[in-house]
């Protein structure tokens, strides 16, 4: 299955990719984000182990333009081939 990716930052490990291909037929959003963590060259946590929701202070994630919380199953929503996942980073700083 192919998942398209959009973001407002360079996702570590897949900076130049616009989509990712997986050798499986189904995959939850949680599994997808865990895959992103494994692709990163350094430690980056999208999903806290066992969490029901993402840390709202860290990430905003949409599936096909709809917030993942509003999708059936939320983090355990099953992605399908051709879905677009948007991962936006949240910041905590000023200058």
């Amino acid at each position, binding site marked *: 299955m192919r998942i398209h990716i959009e*973001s*407002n*930052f*360079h996702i*570590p490990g897949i900076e130049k990719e616009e989509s990712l291909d997986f050798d499986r037929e189904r995959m939850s959003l949680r599994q997808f984000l865990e895959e992103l963590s494994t692709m*990163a*060259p*350094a*430690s*980056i*946590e*999208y999903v806290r182990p066992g969490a029901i929701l993402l*840390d709202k*202070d*860290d*990430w905003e994630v949409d599936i096909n333009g709809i917030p993942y919380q509003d999708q059936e199953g939320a983090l355990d929503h099953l992605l399908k081939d051709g879905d677009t996942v948007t991962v*936006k*980073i*949240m*910041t*905590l*700083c*000023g*200058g």
Partner: protein
Amino acid sequence: MEELSVVGKSVERKDGRVKVTGSARYAGDLVAPGMLHGKILRSPVAHAKILSIDTRKAEALPGVMAVITGKDFPLKPFGTRPDTRDQLPMPVTKVHHFGEGVAAVAATDEDTAEEALDLIKVEYEELPVVLTAEDALKPDSPPVNEFKSNNLPYASNFNFGDVEKGFKDADYIREETFSSQRVTVGFIEPHACLAEVDATGRILLQGSKQSPYITWRHMCRTLDIPLTKLRIVNPYVGGAFSGKHDPFDVDFAAVRLAQKTRRPVRIVLNYDEVLAAYRQRNAMNARLRLGVKKTGAITALDAECVLEGGPICGIGPFNIYYFGAFLNIPYKIPAIQYSGKLVYSNRSPCGTVRGQEIVLAQFALDSLLHMIGGDIGVDPVQMRLINAVTDHWTTANGIVVDVSGLPRCIEKSAEEIKWKESRKSRPRGRGIGFSCASHPSGPRLGGHFGSSVILKLVEDGKVIVTHGGTEIGQGCNTVFCQMVAEVLGLPIEDIEQGVSDSDTTVFDSGMFGDRCTFWDGNAAVLAAKDLKKQLASIAAKDLGADPDALEFKNRRIYVKENPVKGMDFLLAVRKAYYEDGAPLYGRGYWAATDIDLVDWKTGKGNLAHGLDFIATAIELEVDEETGQVRLLKSAHGDDAGQPINPLMLDGQVLGGSTHMMGHALMEESLYDEKGRALNDTWRDYKQPTSMDVPFETVVEHIHTHDPYGPFGAKGAGEASSCSTLAAIANGIYDAVGVRIKDLPITPEKILQALKLKGTAKSSLKGTVNSSSKGTANSSSKGTANSSSKQKEGK
């Protein structure tokens, strides 16, 4: 335009008297019953594995109540972005810089705490140190931070406009390199805090914090507690300048020690600890290539920047962004390409300093602009006027300028410094330098970003203001009181500033980027209007008038068209409390919701409304025998929109400029080859005093009216930091014809450059010879495009 009674007046600062009489209570002055004193043990090495920490002897010392190390905290790193978290409250497996806190002690008195530190035994295994950006980028460079596999934790590449075409269209192109040193932040009050834990386990932290929100959020995440379990109250803060956003080991240690002992714990650092081991400005290496038309109009810019930021990312990714983003302004540059890299090292951790890395970008850009102007024969003032950003301008990276007073700022600074007159005749060794800058009035970066203000109108008719900003010396408490007084028609004496407390205040996202006057100011105006509406409704009933037809002035509420028909302001307040039983609260919030967020991948986006502008001219004198620079006069044309408090605005402009005079000429945090701090005392680390700054200073307020700003005001205080470095560098060149591109511009560097040019005093006769001017840096490269001949190498 409506006549203003309180806004636009230089009323006395609300905190002025308590500060100058020494009665203001800062974090280090706070005491609590049963309070313990905390001290931090610091690493004597810059890079090492921690093999073991033995605290048993210290714990056994009478009077010692607790000892902690990094292992007393959850192993949850924190950082400004979820992809750059690389910092723990205290280190566990390795130390990253000289002076890093490795353990902390709480004891019944300071001496016992100090003695206990000597009893803690830490076994280190030293590692090779990484000191410079060049070292960090070597393939075999030892990784500095255990959360990252190499020493390049962040990089950005931006491309705005058609750069290739821009350079093709240029008549003249010049490329230069610039560098800047490590400097300390420079606030007066060292880091300090008092932590207490109540019977329910709830923590109260009172610290010297610039951005309590940032501290609050980072600490709760790292300690793994909900936000409601930590209360932060801000006492007076003795300056911050971007050096007190984050939580430090001081804060974490005080909290953990208080939790362990169930007693209040206060930690107050010595200043040598601050100079050795806390936030500094990044060291910078940059390369800029600028193309211009014969007229001086810029066609394209190609820039690279490497920032060495110590062992953490911290705010570094935003420093990288700011450097590239603000090359787009204050000059009209149609096309820019930019590459920025942040690298780790084993020097002290960096944050940023007043003006953020716009300061460094502007130093490079405005120095290069001056050099090119000289090459193509365009006067420095004209060079800036040709390129100055004007009203309704959108930069190549998407920043929207509504109102720009920059052209008038340039003209005014030139007039005040007597630029034209100086070209006819000037004493030997004297010169004038210019630079301009722009700064946003508070960036919107995502996440929580609004500002809110709550007003409580007390039954005696006086108002208490509570806002989410932080008074760090910039005068925000006073300007908010002025705005509220103006809206409610009250004298400034009737407005009091309340306490900044996370239990009752919705903190701003942070106190940074010239945001306070603009964002919280708008919220203050809206809160006052909310209160005004409630009072108007009460008064209208009595006066038999339309609430919208009422005017508030001189503690009275009256019908605008018939001023004799009115009532005392206090009477309306009492009617609310005594007849309706209704409390009077005004609530206002403001956020720039209509701007695009920055896309961190491309650097595109509109960051803020209310771009403020400045043009700085500095006249100076160079002693050609000693290389000493004496600053004689500074003249700033400053566009901060409508000045709310002109005297305080002067203070902000001059303060920002003075701050960077030290950066330009004398300050530098020095390290030995093992990464140990060499000048961590005020005796050895030189900052400018009143003897080092210009005797004559002029701030000309260029009044503009920002459509989004409260009363038309913009932010202020950081633009002058951004315009000062290049003004000094350009002034030195104008004075003696040597171009120093490596900060600080010390007497030694000037003398060496004079020697290299063969223009040392002994060989000079008469006036400055403009034809012999040039740069003393071999990396310089200037070329005339197409048919013109190369102009460098005079």
